[in-house]
């Protein structure tokens, strides 16, 4: 589904991504690991149009989306979360989820300003869907749809961010370090959530950036290790974790 070949991103003299090769198939959960600064988040940003691409190609469902603007990438069915949460904290949980649905919502003046009954019916329907989606992660969270986002604890904010990326049923979901800043208990709960995601959207490909190896071990189908913007090795978590190159990159052995 996603084919990345020779993807290169340079910031001035720094090469953040250096000819990256990567494939992700429908329904697969690909773990993307590597030391800090190895280019994981840069890969997400390049893929979703937030940093300019210096070379290489990105194909999604056969379409070339290399260097496409974020809007076009979103329209293709690629959704993402951010390493540091980018939620609309002064708005409600429902508002945040509906941002994920932006491309499917009608924005004409007639529907929004005058056909208020139709709008109300649509809002009710969307709210029911949103509750159902949140309930997959946490039944308690589903009851807090109308609350301001800033009233939620960290784990629920992460869940809302993941749900926001899921509401439009993306074909490819990019999760940027969802366990960052969470307690071990919360991380365990999050792993269950990732299983729930896979169960709920079996056709969705997921690429997961993660530093917590326990998470990668439990949920990923396949791993890819990045180092200095290059693919170091690829395979099952068990195989990758035994690889001497990987150990050297992570532990700094000579």
């Amino acid at each position, binding site marked *: 589904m996603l084919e990345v070949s020779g993807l290169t991103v340079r910031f001035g003299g720094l090469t953040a991504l250096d000819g990256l090769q990567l494939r992700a198939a429908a329904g697969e959960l690909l773990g993307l690991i590597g030391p800090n600064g190895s280019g994981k988040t840069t890969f997400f940003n390049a893929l979703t149009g937030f940093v300019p691409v210096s070379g290489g190609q990105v194909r999604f469902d056969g379409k070339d989306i290399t260097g496409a603007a974020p809007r076009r990438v979103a329209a293709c069915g690629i959704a993402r979360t951010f390493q540091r949460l980018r*939620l609309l904290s002064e708005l409600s949980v429902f508002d945040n989820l509906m941002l994920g649905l932006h491309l499917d919502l009608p924005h004409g003046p007639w529907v929004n300003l005058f056909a208020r009954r139709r709008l109300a019916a649509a809002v009710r329907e969307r709210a029911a869907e949103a509750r159902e989606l949140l309930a997959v992660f946490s039944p308690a969270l589903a009851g807090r749809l109308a609350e301001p986002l800033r009233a939620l604890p960290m784990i629920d904010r992460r869940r809302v961010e993941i749900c926001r990326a899921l509401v439009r049923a993306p074909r490819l979901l990019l999760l940027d370090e969802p366990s960052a800043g969470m307690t071990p208990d919360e991380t365990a709960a999050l792993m269950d959530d990732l299983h729930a995601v896979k169960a709920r959207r079996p056709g969705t490909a997921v690429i997961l950036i993660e530093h917590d190896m326990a998470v990668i071990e439990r949920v990923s189908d396949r791993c890819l290790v990045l180092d200095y913007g290059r693919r170091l090795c690829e395979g099952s978590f068990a195989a990758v974790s035994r690889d001497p190159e990987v150990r050297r990159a992570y532990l700094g052995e000579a």
Partner: protein
Amino acid sequence: MPVAAWPALAAVAIGAGLAAALLLVHHKAAVLAVLAVGAALLVVAQRTRAGERAAASAAAHPRLVPVAVAACGLGLVMLLREDNFALLMLCTVALQTLAALGLHLQFGYAGVANFAGAAFLGVGAYTAAVLGGHLPSVLVLVTGAGLAALAGLLLALPLLRTRGHYAALITIAFGLLLRTFLEVNDTLGGPQGLKVPGFTLGGLAFNDAIVFDEDTEWSFYVPYAVLALALLGATHVLVRRLERSWIGLALDAVRVDETAAAAFGVNGGAWKIAAFCVGNALCGLAGALLAMVTGFVAPPSFAFGDSLVLVSIVILGGIGNPLGLLPAAFLVVVLPEKLQGLQEYRFLLFAVLVILVLRLRPGGLLPRRLRRWPGLP
């Protein structure tokens, strides 16, 4: 259990009462007393959560409350029907609020700061001066709004390429340029300005006093006040609906986090420009009618300071809550007129008011609440 209607009706009545009192009293002490009562009521409403009860009650009676507001507005006009000065002030307050609604749409929702509100008011006003008498008045108002939106479109490109302070500077520059242009342009009257023909509707000339008999004569400002309040009411309803719709959500997303919004397909630039144009159109509409009310336009009415007055109305009222604009406009427009001697120092007063509000009540007099979606409890 059904929510009672009386808290909302009481709030409307108190608001109308305060407005009437402020417009009617003349003595400095009386004006200050009205202000003190208003401030005390605000504190009480906050402490006892009466404000929230009133808001809940208003939400539960979506038909009754607008009718009550309209009735109070008409009642206020009738009360002041022979008082030219008070009615002129009421018109000015209503139209400044209308323009502030435009700014509020730009700044409060889309996050585009506009420090050239008075310039767009001016585009509308000069449109009324040039076209008045040649076109039906309603069309003149519409053209004024349209031209103001078009003038704003000139700024679209520079606004999209800048952010924050820099975008604000562009609007300041535009305001100064427009005023200078008006001053040196002889066909537009230069520094002396132009006369503006009054509003006419189906043979009714708004600029003639309404004479019933020898003893009963209503001010010619009565129809203007009714028209201004009606326009304000209709626009307020539309802005409210806009906020409680998918459009309002998209604008909020652009303001709060344009990057996150872009990741979900929101075209931030297009939304900002759309909000900027609609907001400027409201300024232009207000300017055109205000020019007809006063019968005269000249460049000094559209200076940078007047733009700042509009901005301070938005900040005082509560960024993102259109309901707060009306009391804020009352304070900003009526106070300097009532407290003679203050006129010279009015900018000082606004500055102090804005600083106090930002310091003590950063959300403004009536802070924004979470969006109330239609169809959701």
